[in-house]
């Protein structure tokens, strides 16, 4: 299944940035756009069912259904130093919100390497992949519900 169009565009744009320093700055700027899940949708303490397994930045993922059946994705990152988690959350939120859930459900977790490069620690990559996986799982649930 095709990747959601906006995500493809985002990854293509990132792939054009070959200079490591420029890419890092781009991702830092991206993280600067992070907005936490609105209180109307979730408040602390966030439910464990929303917590991303293996993410040491203590990230949470939430979703809200749109009238057309697609989802908006929201995030919280409790670690104040979790700048990569915030950048990943912004990319996923901007690129996947409103996309067909069946497409989002198939987004591979290893896109984190397309975003951050191969220089991630195992722990860091697992945490970031966990965020992608959590978003995909929410989309799969929505996709299955639509089909039922």
């Amino acid at each position: 299944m095709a990747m959601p169009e906006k995500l493809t565009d985002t990854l293509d744009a990132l792939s054009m940035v070959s200079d490591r320093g420029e890419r890092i700055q781009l991702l830092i700027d991206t993280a600067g756009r992070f907005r936490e899940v609105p209180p109307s949708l979730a408040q602390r303490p966030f439910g464990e069912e929303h917590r991303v397994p293996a993410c040491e930045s203590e990230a949470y993922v939430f979703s809200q259904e749109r009238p057309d059946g697609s989802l908006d994705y929201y995030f919280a990152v409790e670690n104040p130093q979790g700048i990569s988690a915030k950048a990943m959350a912004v990319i996923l939120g901007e690129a996947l919100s409103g996309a067909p859930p069946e497409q989002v459900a198939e987004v591979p977790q290893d896109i984190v390497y397309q975003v951050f490069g191969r220089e991630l620690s195992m722990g860091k990559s697992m945490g970031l992949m966990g965020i992608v996986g959590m978003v995909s799982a929410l989309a799969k649930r929505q996709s299955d519900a639509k089909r039922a």
Partner: protein
Amino acid sequence: MSEIESRGYVRPEVLVSTDWVASHLNDPGIRIVESNEDPLLYSSGHIPGAVEVDWTRDLNDQVRRDYLGREGFEALMRRIGVTKDTTVIFYGDKNNWWATYALWVFQLFGHDKAKIMDGGRIKWVNEGRELSKDTPSYPASDYKAADRDDKRIRAFRDQVLQHVEAKKPLVDVRSPDEYTGKKLHMPEYPNEGALRGGHIPGAASVPWAKAINPEDGTFKTAEELRALYEKEAKIKPEDDVIVYCRIGERSSHTWFVLTNLLGYNKVRNYDGSWTEWGNLVGVPIER
């Protein structure tokens, strides 16, 4: 007596406070080095004058699973303008987890003039101290490195196997769920990079972060650390100890604590750790 000295460490001089660092920012005999897990943190703002040493790009061999060799270390030290006389002050994210890892690698090459900034990056940030986005540049040094010494503070799998057979002490510093192998089998948890879960037989479980005060990231006092390692884990300063985790990064933190803060004489870090042991054919595993 400084606050750090009052904590009763065997080698208190291996730690410096954030105050001390703030007053040595322009000291030519000091090189401040930030080492993080998060690849974006340094560029988002660092201690003024600090250089970055990245564990994947700077400390690892880019082909084999191993650390850089003598020439690579020499090039790194020359690039960041460090001489044999320079004292390197490490700090970083995750309560200095990666900073102690970098310090451990530096010690493989005998650069013993190295200290850790107590509390790491988060303490500096939480104290509202200055951060800079400028990447500093220093004149290249003519550093001549020694060959890497893998005997003193590093352990390999065959040595670990002999260690197990001799029933000598090991410390597993991973989380309790990794220690028991539970994590490897929990649905939705990613594979930890190993085919089998559990721990090396005989290893005591002391998660690395227990050595840290969670409120500010500083190291616990010597008395608290002794309670943790000597009373709970039953190891002693005269023991021959091997520490391990998943790839040797968290266990370098425990290596630092046991060696420098508690003065243990022989502690080796098994950097192959669980990603090697949990994939080896035929080695014993406990759950």
